């Protein structure tokens, strides 16, 4: 036991001696959580659009005013020819063109029916879709106002309640996602290098000839990183709550316990990479090339998992951050207790056990 403590102390010293790395390890999560917490949003606002108003009448003007009133659109200019539309799209300056045909208002008055065309830059289908549905909704509103003068019989109204995030803040969705992402990647990155570095420097041999249980070697290597990650977690949480205004509706103790589990999962994954590679360069490339984008996508905070092809949904199950993201949402935002997250916790525990087991096996093989 005494040996073990000495060992852990040594590892701590190792980590703390490298001030530059330490600064990076602490600085990055802070900068990132604030940056992404404030900046990331899936909302589409301030999109530049062009209005081709061939009608120049009351109705078209009123609709244009409505388009301009919200935050979604910025009316860039009025174009008239079709060629100009194409070149405007190609220059990437605008996303949508609204075309009012001539006699728009008189058609509406005389035939109770008028046409309006939306032309979108569908090279970005998501934005195109969203913008045209925003615009259609504004036109619908105008139409309802026109109809509002008559009383309409058999009217079905809807009462909508937004639960968990009534203000529809993007941060509520993104913070738990970014939290999972940062904790996972920082842990994996840090530990993936630890053993491989000693291998590269040749100091591993020294460790292996010492009368010390190899399992304890692994454990003592990860303890400083575990502590660092817990500090990181606390900083991230403090920032989320006090700077970004995120709630913690559930038990903070539970959040810490499960986060510790998640950190251990990530550390074991890092160790596995460290155990299976021969150079720091490959270890780092694997943890970044192999993990960065897949983790972003398969955590589920950016793109809904249920939209993905079934095979990819299966793949997403092996991404630890996916489960942690669900847990964080449940505890922080929904304020649920352990009974709601036992399944996810169990999965993370299972992953950890398997990873550690494989690690120990691999490590022993190298010993022999």
């Amino acid at each position, binding site marked *: 036991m005494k040996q073990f403590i000495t060992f852990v102390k040594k590892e701590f010293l190792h980590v703390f001696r490298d001030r530059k790395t330490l600064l990076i390890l602490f600085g990055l999560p802070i900068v990132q959580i604030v940056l992404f917490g404030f900046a990331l949003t899936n909302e589409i606002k301030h999109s530049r659009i062009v209005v081709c108003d061939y009608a120049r009448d009351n109705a078209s003007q009123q609709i244009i005013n409505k388009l301009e009133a919200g935050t979604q659109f910025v009316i860039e200019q009025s174009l008239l020819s079709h060629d100009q539309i194409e070149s405007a799209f190609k220059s990437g300056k605008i996303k949508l063109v609204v075309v009012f045909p001539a006699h728009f208002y008189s058609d509406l008055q005389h035939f109770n029916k*008028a046409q309006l065309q939306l032309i979108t830059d569908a090279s970005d289908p998501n934005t195109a879709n969203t913008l045209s549905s925003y615009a259609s909704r504004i036109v619908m509103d105008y*139409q309802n106002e026109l109809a509002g003068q008559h009383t309409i019989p058999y009217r079905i109204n809807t009462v909508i309640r937004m639960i968990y995030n009534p203000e529809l803040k993007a941060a509520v969705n993104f913070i738990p996602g970014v939290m999972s992402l940062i904790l996972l990647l920082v842990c994996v990155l840090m530990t993936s290098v630890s053993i491989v570095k000693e291998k590269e420097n040749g100091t591993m041999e020294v460790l292996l000839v010492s009368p010390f249980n190899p399992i304890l070697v692994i454990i003592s290597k990860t303890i400083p990183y575990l502590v660092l990650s817990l500090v990181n977690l606390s900083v991230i949480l403090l920032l989320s709550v006090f700077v970004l205004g995120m709630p913690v509706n559930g038990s903070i103790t539970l959040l810490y316990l499960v986060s510790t589990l998640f950190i251990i999962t990530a550390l074991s994954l890092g160790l596995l990479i460290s155990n299976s590679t021969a150079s720091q360069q490959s270890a780092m490339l694997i943890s970044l090339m*192999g993990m960065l984008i897949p983790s972003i996508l398969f955590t589920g905070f950016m793109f809904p998992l249920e939209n993905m092809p079934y095979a990819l949904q299966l793949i997403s199950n092996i991404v630890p951050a996916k489960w942690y993201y669900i847990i964080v949402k449940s505890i922080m935002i929904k304020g649920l207790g352990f009974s709601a997250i036992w399944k996810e916790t169990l999965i993370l525990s299972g992953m950890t056990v398997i990873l550690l087991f494989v690690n120990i096996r691999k490590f022993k093989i190298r010993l022999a």
Partner: protein
Amino acid sequence: MRTLRFLLQKEFRQIFRNKALLPIIFFAPIIQLLVLPLAADYEIKNINITVVDNDHSGFSQKLISKIAASGYFKLADYAGSFNAGFHQMENDKSDLILEIPQGFERNLVRENEQNLFIAINAINGVKANLGGAYLNQIIADYNADIRLKWMPASKFNPMPAIEVTTSNWFNPSMNYRYYMVPGILVILVTMIASYLCALNIVKEKEAGTIEQINVTPIRKYQFILGKLIPFWVIGMFIFSVGLFGVGWLVYGIVPVGNLVLLYGYLSVYLIALLGLGLLISTYSETQQQAMSVAFFFMMVFILMSGLFTPIESMPRWAYAITQCSPVTYFVEVVRMIVLKGSSFENIRYHFLIMTGFAVLLNSWAILNYRKTS
């Protein structure tokens, strides 16, 4: 010139000798490009809806089947009560709850007006908004059906109707993959080029071999060119395989724009990125440091490049940050050239900025690079 040739020979040999590294450099990006675009689809569909039908009337039945047939919603369940439905929302089994009050049909006919209650899981605000809008639209259609049925057509004073037609240019089938593949390709090439470059030099520092090179009569610029050129070539190669091998053959994306223009931009872009890698390496002492810094930049670059989320909607200061990242420009340019066939005129500004990045990052790195330490 001869010196440079030997240096290049050495670098290429070192890269190709490393059997552990090769698959990461060449296969990892290609496999990811094959798989990831399938995952990056933001189209909102399959919204899980729980219906709490307290009315059990013909009207409510018809509304429910209309919702189920719309294609946007998946009926997760019928719940007996709102609380039971809410429990499903807590467990992520359902995104939306529609509660039809008791006496819905009777009241609608008698009182001419009736409310429906909708509760939406709004953690993802955009999804919530769109889900609510879709449901509202379906209910409005349904309402119009009822009116038609209950009111004699002759007496019905037709409401003013504005018919909105939409025409989608450049991607009429609205295929999200066309949009994602070029963007993801950019990121993969970016990561490979900048990581490799940064790590490679720091590795020589750590191993001490850089000292050996420094005492030879190799000039500073020769050494740096010797480091940059191989990764520039690799970047070009991976981009080509991704664009033609995966983008064209697998996803059927035929670049509509000028390829010379695209490759011209790519060349400048890679020079800028390699400059960044070089810069990072001059500031780091260990591979771990270089990696952590590169990781930081990469994460900011990826998440704030407009690849996954729109950047115009960001707060002004954040938007300003996106404009300081070379990745933002290339993600935009590659989509413009490949999908819309934009010309040099359209991307002149992007070209200018990228050249600026290339000059700035490389000069900074070279000035900061010390042959004698």
